[in-house]
């Protein structure tokens, strides 16, 4: 069964975020992308498929090869995504405070 894809789901996965990072500088083939991961090639292909279905990645045929690149328009749409990630750093700093307060009370 194919679940309905949504972008939140797409970027929730760390491997897919890493893929988006990779292709942010230049278009890459699936093989070149996969070579950056220890994961099995079909797993990477699945991730690419999900990102493409969400329009975060665009495919471009160049001769026999398909290159993947970021879709800037979709990136615009997910600008609101800054909030979860903004929160991630805030959470991190909150954690820092909590960790250090606990440490302080133990002293």
């Amino acid at each position: 069964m194919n679940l309905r894809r949504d972008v939140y789901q797409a970027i929730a996965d760390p491997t897919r975020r890493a893929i988006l990072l990779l292709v942010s500088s230049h278009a890459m083939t699936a093989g070149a992308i996969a070579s950056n991961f220890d994961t099995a090639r079909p797993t990477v292909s699945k991730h690419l498929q999900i990102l493409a279905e969400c329009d975060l990645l665009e495919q471009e045929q160049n001769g026999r090869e398909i290159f993947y690149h970021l879709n800037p328009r979709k990136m615009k749409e997910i600008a609101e995504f800054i909030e979860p990630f903004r929160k991630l750093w805030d959470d991190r700093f909150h954690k820092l405070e909590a960790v250090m307060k606990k440490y302080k009370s133990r002293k």
Partner: protein
Amino acid sequence: MQRKTKVNAEDGKQELSISREFDLPLELLFKAHIEPTMVEQWMGTKVLNLESRKHGGYQFETADPQGNVIFRAHGVIHELSPNRKIVRTFEMENTPFGVQIEFYDFEKLTEDTSRLNMHVIFESVAQRDQLLKLPFAQGLNMAHDRIQDIVNKLR
């Protein structure tokens, strides 16, 4: 009261700054940055190595539950003045962002509060902007209007 992380990234500059006030004494805020076990806890990454001293180095790594490395970063510490300052390089491996120089300034506000000012310098404007264009790259707490600016340029 929730304290907010502020990020400033001016147009056309190859730098950005991050600042945040902490409900912690200066000494503890500093300690959170130099003790490997503490860095691990709040950064949520494995600290493979962290020599908190001048000429020391560090290496962070995060793997997914299957054991695949999804984040690896390293750098060298240029200066470390206790409770005052850390100057270090930072490089995220397998990304286009290059090497960054990070200046951490630790500041005492009151006996129980402190502030961290981070100044990050990139090799080029393009590299900084590339990082900023990815809202999720670092999870930095960026001003939303700044993101809007960048996004507008993408159109």
